[in-house]
């Protein structure tokens, strides 16, 4: 009951901010269309296929998830400064109620967002005559579940740790890191050297890689990536919960 009430409130709070529509749903779609257009202008002889829809869709979906992280951070940091949370801390709400109440709506939004991004990708694939398998797409969404929880965890952690002004900045840093080092716009495996190592130590490349393998019909190749992301997911989730529990006492402000 309390979890449901809080989750409902959070989903309303998120969806009534028109910016979240724009970024979480619109932005990945715009990127897909834009990149497809760019892809069309690349001569086939260049042999550059990163922007082809079957390669692009996984990366853009992960890119979309990073925006959800930003909104998770904005929601929690705003809640903390508005003393709305203080009222709830003095209510029968428990730490579990709070955490579940934040996670559940964000996870639902994330899944909807993945479905929309992949759905649009599928339409583009049909138009472009590229083959995309629906079963593989569904599998790709499943491989993204640890990433979804991880990105939301990052958002709740930053929102719980930092102010309404600092949290979005830190999220932007993660968004940049994820898009540059995540192999969304480039083929990380072809880079080599220190940059490739950094990419592969951080979870973002693995989020994209797991989904990309699934889209290609080789979900097995992405298992290591799924495990790496899952490890990050566990660490980030624990950190988010610890920070939240700490915030519940106003002594720790």
């Amino acid at each position, binding site marked *: 009951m309390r979890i449901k*009430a809080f989750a409902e409130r959070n989903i309303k709070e998120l969806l009534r901010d028109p910016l979240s529509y724009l970024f979480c749903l619109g932005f990945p779609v715009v990127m897909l269309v834009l990149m497809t257009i760019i892809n069309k202008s690349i001569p086939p002889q260049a042999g550059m296929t990163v922007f082809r829809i079957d390669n692009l869709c996984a990366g853009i979906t992960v890119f979309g998830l990073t925006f959800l992280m930003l909104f998770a951070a904005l929601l929690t940091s705003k809640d903390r400064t508005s003393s709305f949370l203080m009222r709830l801390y003095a209510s029968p709400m428990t730490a579990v109620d709070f955490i579940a109440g934040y996670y559940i709506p964000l996870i639902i939004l994330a899944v909807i967002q993945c479905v929309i991004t992949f759905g649009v990708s599928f339409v583009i694939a049909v138009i472009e005559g590229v083959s995309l398998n629906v079963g593989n797409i569904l599998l790709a969404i499943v491989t993204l579940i640890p990433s979804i929880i991880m990105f939301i965890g990052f958002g709740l952690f930053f929102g719980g740790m930092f102010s309404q002004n600092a949290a979005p900045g830190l999220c932007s840093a993660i968004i940049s890191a994820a898009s540059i080092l995540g192999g969304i716009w480039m083929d990380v495996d072809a880079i080599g050297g220190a940059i490739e190592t950094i990419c592969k130590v951080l979870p973002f490349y693995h989020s994209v890689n797991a989904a990309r393998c699934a889209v290609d019909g080789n979900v097995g190749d992405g298992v290591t990536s799924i495990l790496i992301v899952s490890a990050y997911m566990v660490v980030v989730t624990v950190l988010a919960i610890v920070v939240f529990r700490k915030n519940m006492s106003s002594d720790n402000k």
Partner: protein
Amino acid sequence: MEAIAIKALTKKYKDFTAVDALDLTIGKGELFGLLGVNGAGKTTTIKMLSCLSKPTSGKAEVMGFDIVEKSDEVKKVISISTQETAVAPNLTVRENLEFIAKVYGIENPKAAADKIIAEFSLQEKENSRTKTLSGGWQRKVSIAMALITSPQVLFLDEPTLGLDVLARRELWKVIEQLKSKMTIILTTHYLEEAEALCDRIAIMTHGKLRAVGTADELMKLAGKDNFEDAFVEIAERSGN
């Protein structure tokens, strides 16, 4: 049993003592005022009593429940209207009220919201997003949210802070109607507010309780014939 029993309640932030060995009992149904200038320790006291902050030492019971050991029980019977307005900005007035009712497990949240909307004359704005309302309206909603749970003990931390004269008077009327239905602890730094509303008043300075009594008793104690002079006398006598 008293509604609130406080013994040597102390809160220290590092070396700074925000609340210093507070002793106080508040009876059931009393409208009790904590009066003091900014920084006196009123909010800190309220935070400890509402389980938002742990005392450094001392004890307190709310409706017979220890605020540290039995905080889950305390949280069920209290409600707080914090010093700053505490509303969910993107929810409508009605949604805010029903949300709080659900959090406290109230059977019929809709009916509870209907009732409180009528009591606070919020009908005109019930479907407006709370963030679009004026400061005065938001504060009214914030206090209505504290009341929808039918608490046994209500904490009102500076309920009229930042309100214009008319809004303040209107809120006074609302608070007066609550008198004796529940125990209310109201903090304020407005002397006339404490004098007008409260059954008994405690004067706090520098974290210490300086005097407790009705407004008349405090004036007698200070040997003054108006409340403001009495407050100044008591505050200065204690080395403020």
